[in-house]
């Protein structure tokens, strides 16, 4: 087992090693995820190369949810996120802004033009000379090509359109590029991931790498993967973006958070996405 844990008492450490020896890949028990009886979702995969010294296996957050919550994702009729996706589909086809254009006017059917897009974002943008997120691309179309207002970065409209776009890649492997010009951004994101913030001095890795599959109070800790975002959370009954989740997690370390859409969270999104390279896009997923 390459997952590193804090130095515990020797007895606890010995116990962890024994567990670790028996627990290579397949360490976490879980059912298979097949959506609508046809789309197979990879919820467990070997860690991507860049992560191999820290983890053997990566898991979707779905694996750690209760049977009831898991079931909601197995059929689109039960998935509460689909209401938002349907609304976004209308938005896709509805003109907006001073140019009187809809997304469809430039891109055609979302089912065709957006297939595979979610799987490779965030992505290096040659024209902009920086890594761009899907939300930034959407807002660029709105302000530059439609003459419409930018949507709030982590707001409901943005979450819904991202869910619609993400759905077109459902079942495809997450495959964000971390080399070439994206490398520097990725490295900044990695640094944030391992920085222990706030009065509780916890990093993303403190929970989601060192202690996944354990309980903090009533929460069963996952690896904090974002392959399923935007996610519908039962807790707030709406779609949630990855940046909103990052913000909540950082806040819970008793820290000053970064803002959704901030350069810091863009780097973090690229890095966290890359930790899920090999899992399926699962958008829109359901969590508690």
């Amino acid at each position, binding site marked *: 087992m390459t997952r590193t844990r*804090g130095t515990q008492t020797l007895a606890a450490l010995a116990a962890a090693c024994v567990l670790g020896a028996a627990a290579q890949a397949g360490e976490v028990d879980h059912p298979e995820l097949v959506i609508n009886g046809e789309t197979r979702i990879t919820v467990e995969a070997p860690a991507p190369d860049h992560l191999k010294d820290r983890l053997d296996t990566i898991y979707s957050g779905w694996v750690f949810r209760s049977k009831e919550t898991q079931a909601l994702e197995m059929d689109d009729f039960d998935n509460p996120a689909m209401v938002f996706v349907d609304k976004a589909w209308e938005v896709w086809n509805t003109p907006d802004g001073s140019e009187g254009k809809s997304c469809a006017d430039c891109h055609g059917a979302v089912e065709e033009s957006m297939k595979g897009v979610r799987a490779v974002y965030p992505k290096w943008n040659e024209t902009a000379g920086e890594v761009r997120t899907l939300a930034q691309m959407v807002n660029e179309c709105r302000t530059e090509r439609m003459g419409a207002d930018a949507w709030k970065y982590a707001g409901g409209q943005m979450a819904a359109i991202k869910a619609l776009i993400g759905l077109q890649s459902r079942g495809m492997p997450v495959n964000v590029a971390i080399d070439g010009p994206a490398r520097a951004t990725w490295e900044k994101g990695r640094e944030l991931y391992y920085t222990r913030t706030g009065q509780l001095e916890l990093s993303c890795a403190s929970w989601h790498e*060192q202690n996944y599959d*354990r309980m903090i*109070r009533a929460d069963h*800790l996952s690896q904090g993967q974002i392959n399923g975002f935007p996610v519908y959370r039962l807790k707030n009954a709406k779609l949630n973006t990855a940046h909103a989740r990052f913000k909540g997690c950082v806040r819970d370390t008793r*820290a*000053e958070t970064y803002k959704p859409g901030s350069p810091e969270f863009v780097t973090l999104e690229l890095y966290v996405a890359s930790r899920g390279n090999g899992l399926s896009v699962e958008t829109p997923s359901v969590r508690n």
Partner: protein
Amino acid sequence: MKPTTLTLAVSLTDTPGDPVEGASIAGSKKKGNCVACHQVSALPDVPFQGDVGPSLDGVGNRWDAAQLRGILVDAKKTFPDTVMPSFHKIGGFIRPGNGFTGKAAKEGELKPLLGAQQIEDVIAFLATLKE
């Protein structure tokens, strides 16, 4: 063999710790919330005890009061790199927040997670956890 420990022999306050109050601090989400990460059999009424850290059962046999004080004040001095927060420390944080608001902590207003008397109360409680 135990790791090198920060031992603090001198009590942080003049009032002896109160184990009953200490139990309440350890079990309360709003105070110490030790059970977020530790299982404690002596607190059967506290639901959802976590397992990020070792069970605290028998901890009164494993450590004396001076060692427990060190672990509580700043656990990282005893367990380097531990995820356990430092409960009586007010400096050296990266981006400290104003509680759980997500906003920056106000200059000079950061309070330790537990006050001196609360630390003594928790130590008194932990000392009762013997097997």
